[in-house]
């Protein structure tokens, strides 16, 4: 190869064009403009579809219902009622309590599973992850429905216990109880708990564990002093990812809860449905959001505090 060949074989017009459009210059100048331009459609939609409705919901929570219409003058009546009538507070408290228990159960039961896959599965890891998260991708409604089949008055457990002769009458506590709701919630959201915990366990540098062992920690101390603190971010996000959505759930309590197992979501749904008191429904939604926010902030502060104490 010589100098000639490369220079003669390439046409002269190969040199990049010197003229550059105005817009092109502007876009080149501002990397930010390009980035914001790309994200703008998605962001605009989300702003319109989240903030706008939410703003109206807040406004509506200060209205009052008058028969089939609304009184649109500003009023704190709904909030007053929500605070004064014990039924609202009790329902809200029960929702948070049931979600809390379901969250703790899901996180505690899923942690060993996430740990197992992160540390003890070496081949076909992807297969295990898919296996653990697959149910999550199928219809929530149908998963809850499945529990109704299992726990029902004439369901799997009762009929099985009767047919083997352990009981004579169906147990009523199984369906339409708080425990039925809690079991179902914990089960249905298990995949949501596993993923973040798995990711944070998987990220832990294995040499840290070897170092802890080398420095004299046994398996238990090593877990408490290294693995657990390092996987805490995963535990926190898993907890929040389950707790927040489940507090507003209404499918599970409606199908499995009965009167004792009803949650605030059921009431909100009824306010927008049969009761037809939209402003009250809006107020309850806002109160639910406020409670969730406060609890989440407290929870994050607490875990940060605990982590600082551990390390």
């Amino acid at each position, binding site marked *: 190869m010589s100098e000639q060949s490369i220079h003669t074989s390439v046409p002269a017009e190969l040199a990049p064009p010197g003229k550059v459009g105005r817009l092109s210059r502007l876009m080149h100048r501002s990397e930010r403009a390009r980035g914001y331009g790309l994200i703008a459609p998605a962001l605009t939609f989300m702003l319109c579809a989240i903030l706008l409705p939410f703003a109206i919901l807040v406004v509506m929570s200060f209205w009052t219902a008058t028969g089939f219409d609304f009184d649109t003058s500003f009023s704190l009546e709904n909030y007053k009622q929500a605070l004064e009538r014990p039924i609202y507070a009790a329902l809200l408290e029960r929702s948070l309590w049931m979600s809390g228990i379901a969250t703790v159960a899901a996180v505690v039961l899923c942690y060993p599973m996430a740990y*197992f896959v992160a540390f*003890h599965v070496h081949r076909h890891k992807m297969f295990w992850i898919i296996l653990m998260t697959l149910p999550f991708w*199928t219809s929530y409604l149908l998963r809850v429905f499945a529990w109704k089949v299992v726990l029902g008055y004439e369901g*799997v457990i009762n009929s099985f216990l009767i047919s083997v002769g352990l009981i004579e009458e169906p147990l009523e506590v199984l369906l339409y109880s708080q425990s039925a709701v809690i079991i179902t919630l914990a089960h249905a959201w298990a995949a949501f708990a596993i993923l973040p915990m798995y990711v944070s366990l998987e990220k832990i540098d*294995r040499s840290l564990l*070897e170092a802890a062992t080398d420095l004299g920690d046994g398996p238990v101390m090593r877990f408490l002093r290294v693995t657990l603190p390092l996987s805490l971010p995963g535990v926190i996000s898993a907890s929040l990812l389950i707790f927040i959505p489940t507090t507003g759930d209404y499918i599970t309590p409606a199908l499995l809860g009965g009167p004792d197992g009803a949650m605030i979501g059921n009431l*909100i749904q009824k306010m927008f449905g049969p009761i037809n008191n939209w402003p009250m429904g809006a107020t309850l939604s806002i109160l639910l959001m406020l409670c969730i926010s406060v609890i989440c902030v407290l929870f994050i502060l607490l875990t940060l505090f605990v982590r600082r104490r551990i390390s």
Partner: protein
Amino acid sequence: MSEESYIHRRNRPLQIYAVIFLILLYVPVLFLPLFSFNDSLYTTFPLTGFTLKWYEELWTRDAMWAALFNSIKVGLFVAAASTFLGIFAAKAITRYRLPGRGPIVGFIMLPLVIPLIIFGVALLVLLSRLGVPLSLYTVSAGHLIVCLPFAIATLIPRFEGFDQAIEEASADLGENGWWTFWRVTLPMVFPGVLASFILTFTVSFDEFIMAFFLTGTQPTLPVYIWGQLRFPQSFPSVLALASIIIAVSFVMVILSLYINRGAQFGGTKGSGHD
């Protein structure tokens, strides 16, 4: 095994726990197909006999078919729209130094963590104040809120999984942003695009909470099922329908995860320059 290190040595109790965990994870759902083939109105043991009549009955329900097509229509639209928007959003998030990137991403991901009932009622209130009648369009809008975070979360690892230098090489070789996107970016992220499409379709197809508030006269399939749950005599057909839906969902999700393998959960491949 000799290849196992001290840290990774076998833990028998944990293995047993994992197996039990998986069994309990799947068993409740597996009762649905089991009883859908049972020749009885009730989901009770002992089983009374094998039958396909619930599936046959399903075949004759026009309302179910109408609801199915509604769900497919909404699902296809939502999958296309959320994946389309998601591609550009994911590119912006992974490729540009955007001030306020964290809050923007957090905001877009909000629907993953906030109770959907809140979004449902808020959207319902807005639509009714604007005088927009409830229809499949309003359901689609609601589902787009739910699906966009899934689309973006599926696509981001794909963008992170390939070195930005590859796009820069294209620019360096004379291609502008548009051509670079067609010739390099899209082929590179294509498995993610396909996976995002299938996943968002599945999510939309199965979504009930939003659809419940935003459906007009044309119910989607989950809304139809919810309505049928009130009638004990429809119970076995619902079981049959649920079995089919779950089977199809499983296949679609496995398919999308398989297509998008190698880019799961953030990946571990880092990229960057000094």
